[in-house]
C-alpha cells in the first residue's frame, strides 16, 4: 500500500496485526480492543507500538496510552464520513505528537482538510498519481480557522489580521 508523507511516497515500516494471535517482531499496529486487552504485555515488548482506532471510539479512551504510542490510525469508511476529522483534532489537542495516519477512503480532494486537522501520513492506494496528491495538498493558500496544522506558506487569516494579538498557545505546522 503506498503511503504519502510530506508530499512524497514513503515505505511502510509497520506490521499490522489482527485482534489476536502471535505478535511479530518489529513495530506493530494493533486494533484498539487488543491494546486494551494486552496493554501490560504490549507496553513491555521491544519495538514501536501503534494503534488503529475506530471512528466510533472516543479519543479520551486513548489518553493513558498516548505517551507510549508512535502511530495512531484513523479510518475513513467513506470519504463523507467525517468523524475521524474530529478525533484527529482531539488527539492533537490532547498533546499527541506521533504519526497520525488516515486510512480507508482517502481522496485527494479531502487531503488538505486532513492535513489541517493534524493527519501526517495517508494510505493512498494506487488510483491517483503522486503529482495529483502533491497538487491537492495545497489547493487553498489560506484558512480562516485558528489552531490548524498547515504549511509554512499557508496563511491563517484571523492571525494575520491581528498579528499583535495573543498568538495561539501552540502554533502547529504540518510535517
Amino acid at each position, binding site marked *: 500500500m503506498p503511503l504519502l508523507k510530506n508530499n512524497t511516497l514513503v515505505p511502510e515500516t509497520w506490521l499490522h496485526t489482527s485482534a489476536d494471535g502471535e505478535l511479530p517482531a518489529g513495530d506493530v499496529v494493533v486494533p484498539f480492543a487488543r491494546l486494551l486487552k494486552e496493554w501490560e504485555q504490549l507496553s513491555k515488548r521491544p519495538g514501536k507500538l501503534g494503534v488503529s482506532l475506530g471512528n466510533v471510539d472516543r479519543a479520551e479512551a486513548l489518553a493513558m496510552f498516548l505517551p507510549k504510542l508512535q502511530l495512531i490510525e484513523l479510518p475513513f469508511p467513506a470519504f463523507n*464520513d467525517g468523524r475521524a476529522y474530529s478525533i484527529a483534532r482531539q488527539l492533537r489537542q490532547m498533546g499527541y505528537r506521533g504519526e497520525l495516519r488516515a486510512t480507508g477512503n482517502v481522496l485527494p480532494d479531502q487531503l488538505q482538510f486532513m492535513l489541517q486537522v493534524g493527519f501526517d501520513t495517508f494510505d493512498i492506494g494506487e488510483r491517483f498519481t503522486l503529482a495529483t496528491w502533491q497538487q491537492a495538498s495545497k489547493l487553498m493558500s489560506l484558512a480562516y480557522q485558528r489552531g490548524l496544522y498547515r504549511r509554512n506558506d499557508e496563511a491563517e487569516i484571523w492571525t494575520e489580521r491581528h498579528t499583535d*494579538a495573543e498568538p495561539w498557545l501552540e502554533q502547529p505546522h504540518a510535517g
Partner: protein
Amino acid sequence: MYRYDEFDHQFVRDRTNQFRSQADRRLKGELTEEEFRPLRLMNGLYLQLHAYMLRVAIPYGTLSSKQMRQLAFIADKWDKGYGHFTTRQNIQYNWIKLEDTADILDALADVEMHAIQTSGNCIRNVTTDHWAGAAADEIADPRPVGELLRQWSSLHPEFSFLPRKFKIAVTGAPNDRAAVKVHDIGLRLHRNAEGAIGWEVIVGGGLGRTPMIGVTVRNFLPEHELIGYLEAIMRVYNLYGRRDNKYKARIKILVHEIGADKFKSEVEAEYARRPQASTEVEQRELQRIAAYFAAPQLEKLPRWSPGFEEAKLGNPSFSRWTKNNLGPHRADGYTIVNISLKPDGGIPGDATSGQMRLMADLAERYSFDELRVSHAQNIVLPHVKKDDVFAIWKALEAAGLAAANYGHAGDIIACPGLDYCALATARSIPIAQSISRKFADSAKQDEIGKLKINISGCINACGHHHVGHIGILGLDKKGEEYYQITLGGSSAEAASIGTILGPGFAGHEVADAIETILDTYLKLRQPGEEFLAAYRRVGAKPFKEALYAAA
C-alpha cells in the same frame, strides 16, 4: 456593509480555481459523478430535474446595488433572465450548464460573492433578520456575528463532512424575524437584568420530516465565546450525530435521542477541553467586522413627512401599499420598504434581471446602496426616507413590483416543488399561484390581515409549511398530487409547529379550502385579533367543521 480584504479575496479566488479544476476533471471523466457530487454540492451546484441549479450565498441576506446588478448579469448571461430568491436568503439559478459554472463563480468573486457551502453536509449560509441594522426593536445589529460565523465556517476542515446539513440563524431583536428556534443552531441576542448583552444559544430546532423547536443550551453566552462554544457543539454533533439514516441525521435527532441534558453536558465537557482559553483574536476580529456595519449617516428628520402623507391622501393604491409594506425604522423620518416578490398569480421569490436592476437602482439612490433578501423571499430596502417612498412606489409599480401584500395572504412562501426539484412529490408553485389569485382582491386581503401561508412540495419542508399560520404540504397518493393543510404554526419568538387539520385536498380544491378557513376566521375573530391568535384561542374545531362538514 462588509467589504472583502486581500485575504477574503484570495480565499474565494483559490476556491474558484479549485472548483474549475474539479469541474474539468469531471468533464474529462477523471472523476465519477459520485465523487464529484459532494465537491459540486459544497460549491452550491445541484443536479435538478431538467438542468444544474446553482445556489449563490447571500450572507445574512445583505446585498449592495453592485452585487444585485451582478446577479442580474449572471441571470442574463448564463440563465434565462431571472433568478429565484430562496427561504434561506440566497438566490438560485435553475438553468445552469456545468461548463459555465466556474465562470459564474469568477463573476461572483468579482463582486465579493460566492456559492461556498450553499449545499452539502456542512455549515450553510448564516441567515438573520432581514431588517437588521434598521429595525426599531433591535438591540444590536446581528450581522457582525453573521460575518464572523461565515468566515469561521468557510471550509472548516473539521466540519465539512457532517452527518447532515447544518443551518445557523441569528437575531438581534426580541421580535424574531429569523426563525431562530427552528434552526440547527439559533442565536438570540438579549439583555440581562444588569443591562449587559449576551447570546441565548438554541440547538436542535428544525423542520423537515421531524419538525422540532430547539432547546436552549446556554442562556447568556458572552459574544467573544461564540466561536469556541460553537466549535464544541459542532464537534459533539460531528462525532455522535447519526450517520446510518439520512432522515435521522440532523442535530435535532441527536439532541432528542440522547436528551437535552446529556447533549448539554457533552458540549460543556468539550468546551472545557478547548486548548486556547484566550479569545482576543476573535474579539478583535469581531470589532474589525463590526466597523463595516456602522450605521449609515442618517439625517435628523421630523417624524412627520408632509409629502408622504399628502401622497397617501391622493392615491389609495399607494396608501394601501404603505400600510402593508413598510416596517418601523429606528430613526424618525425613515422607514423600511418591503418589496413583495409575490405578484398576484406569480411565482413566489422570482425576479427578472430587469427587476433586479431596478431594485439595485432604487437602493443606490434611496437606501444607502443596500438591499436585503428576506427568508420570506422578498426584497427589503432598509433605510428609506419617508419623503422618498412615493417615488420608489411609482418605480416599483411600473416594474410589476408593487404588490401590496407583504405579510398578508398573498405573501406566500413556496419551495420550487415538482416544477424544478428532483425530491418533490407535488407541485408548489401552481398552488401558490391559485391562492394568490383567489386573494388578489385587495379589500379581502386587508380584511384578513397578517397571515403567513407556507407551501412545501414534499416532506423535506423547504417551504416551511410546519411554521406557516396556514401550512400546505404537497404529497403523492398513488400518482395523484394531494395537499395536507396544517394550522397554527409560527417561526416567531413564540414558535410552534402546525397541526394537521384532516384529510388532504386535490390541487384544484386547495384555494377554496383556504378561503373556507379564512371565512371561518373572519366570522369568529374578536376585534383586532390576527389569524394565529384566533386559532390559538379557539383551536382546530371550528375550522374542521367548516371544511369537512359538507362531506
